[in-house]
């Protein structure tokens, strides 16, 4: 780790302050920039225009962004411990892609307009199916090559499904735009309904919180973890469900946002070391801050979508990581 031991305990407070600053910036900035005073007045409901902008447009987007960031980064952390592999993350393994494909099929079939809950349900089913496929593909020990290849295969397959669906609906402009949104990932125009859909992320995070110590042991491999007292069967089942649900919910409200689950746990691990008891809370807060920051950068750059910004940051980071592999 880079940080000296005495500074490590300050990592969480510092990240929380960073998150708060980014949140305030997110509420202030947009098509119409609000001054700090006006933002406050809008929050308190004393300025009706500012209040509408904040409570109807910026607050839902802010909350969805934070939840998505927390969900994707912690899902990445869980997958890395589960597969004992630094590179595992929802995007690489195709779990995000599965969620997106599920969402796309739901939209294309017209179910999404029948009920607000069918879309996240479709995303969850897609993500679960992709998770199951990864587990089967990587069953005999999850070596880096196996995981990468499983991810490549799965992502290609899911891409084919999505492309097929897209070509079937070339005439329906509105549906295709909706579908493209899920493929590129973003948090603009999110409403309180989306916040509602994403809220279970908080429950999943709360369940994940106390599992950090067991994740340390699981990262040593199943036999060692068992010999040290971990019921690995139960733990692995919990972690698999958690990472899938976290990824699926995030995908259901923001589409396939890439690389968050890779970058955030990595940077934090470099800073504070590999112990998951420490990493779980840091990843949740750090992931929220990262997505919020990327969304702000995208907005400042003239409306770049969140998924594009995270990929622009994440792509080079991933290549840099690959270079460091033995």
């Amino acid at each position, binding site marked *: 780790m880079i940080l000296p*031991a005495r500074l490590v305990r300050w990592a969480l407070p510092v990240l929380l302050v960073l998150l708060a600053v980014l949140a305030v910036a997110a509420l202030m900035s947009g098509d119409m920039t609000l001054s700090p005073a006006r933002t406050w007045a809008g929050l308190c409901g004393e300025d009706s225009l500012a209040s509408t902008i904040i409570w109807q447009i910026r607050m839902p987007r802010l909350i969805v962004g934070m939840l998505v960031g927390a969900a994707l980064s912690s899902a990445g952390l869980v997958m*890395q411990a589960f597969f*004992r*592999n*630094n590179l595992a993350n929802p995007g690489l393994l195709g779990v995000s892609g599965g969620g997106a494909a599920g969402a796309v099929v739901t939209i294309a079939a017209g179910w999404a307009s029948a009920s607000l809950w069918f879309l996240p349900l479709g995303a969850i089913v897609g993500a679960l199916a992709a998770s199951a496929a990864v587990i089967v593909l990587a069953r005999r020990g999850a070596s880096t090559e196996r995981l990468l290849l499983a991810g490549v295969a799965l992502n290609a397959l899911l891409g084919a499904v999505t492309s097929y669906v897209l070509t079937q609906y070339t005439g329906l402009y509105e549906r295709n735009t909706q579908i493209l949104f899920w493929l590129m990932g973003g948090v603009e125009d999110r409403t309180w309904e989306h916040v509602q859909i994403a809220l279970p992320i908080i429950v999943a995070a709360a369940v994940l919180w106390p599992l950090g*110590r067991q994740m*340390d*042991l699981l*990262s*040593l*491999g*199943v*036999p*060692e973890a*068992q*010999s*040290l*007292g*971990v*019921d*690995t069967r139960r733990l692995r089942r919990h972690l698999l469900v958690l990472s899938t649900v976290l990824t699926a919910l995030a995908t259901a409200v923001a589409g396939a946002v890439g690389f968050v689950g890779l970058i955030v746990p990595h940077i934090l*691990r470099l800073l504070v*070391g*590999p*112990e998951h008891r420490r990493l779980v809370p840091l990843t949740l807060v750090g992931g929220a801050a990262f997505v919020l920051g990327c969304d702000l950068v995208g907005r400042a750059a003239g409306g770049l979508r969140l998924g594009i910004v995270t990929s622009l940051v994440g792509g080079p980071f991933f290549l840099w990581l690959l270079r460091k592999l033995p």
Partner: protein
Amino acid sequence: MNALDIRAAAVTGRLLPVSLGLPRGSLIGLVGPNGAGKSTLLQVAAGILPASGQVVWQGRDLAKIPFIERARYAAWVPHGAHFEFGFSVRSVVSQGRYAHGDDEKGVDEALARLDLTALADRSVNHLSDGERARVLLARALVTEAPLQLWDEPLAALDPRHGLEVLRLARTLAAAGATVLFSLHDLRVAHGLDHVVVLRERALRAFGTPADILTPELLLDVFAVRAHTVPGLTLDLP
């Protein structure tokens, strides 16, 4: 009552049915040529490799003991370990206290005992094989488990640390623990309380070294000739 009873335990393709009873408070060597099933037997005894038959710890059927409780009774030291994440030496040793509520008890003593105090904050991935083997032994030590199952603990150690680990094993056995460990050095095995000899995935012999490690058996199992002539002998000063 025995510390460990293995009853007709077998693993398909890796171990033919083995029955064995290990007494408490003894230091037991597990020998056999490469591929004889030593690691498999240790993992079966530790309850981390499913096997047919039955494994009994102090009269209790292992299958009925929850994992967290198992970890307080038996410690397993793998032969070489891969760490995907660079935990510090101290943090790895502390993992041995997980089943005791992560109380860190005995961690400093174990680090000192295995000559790791100076390396405590180092990442396990930046250690030599021998140093890493000592980290795993220190972790097994802090579990305070009465059954210690070590897979080739001496393989990577220098002579000095090898002798210290042997002395540690002897101290544990004297205090009532049962230490079963695999090794290749038959001269070391000759000085232990009991020896288990495996050959071609089956139990070949079990007993005191004097009774078991006869020239005939060594020739049969290892295809080596045994001589009792004075040579170089090492000891702790």
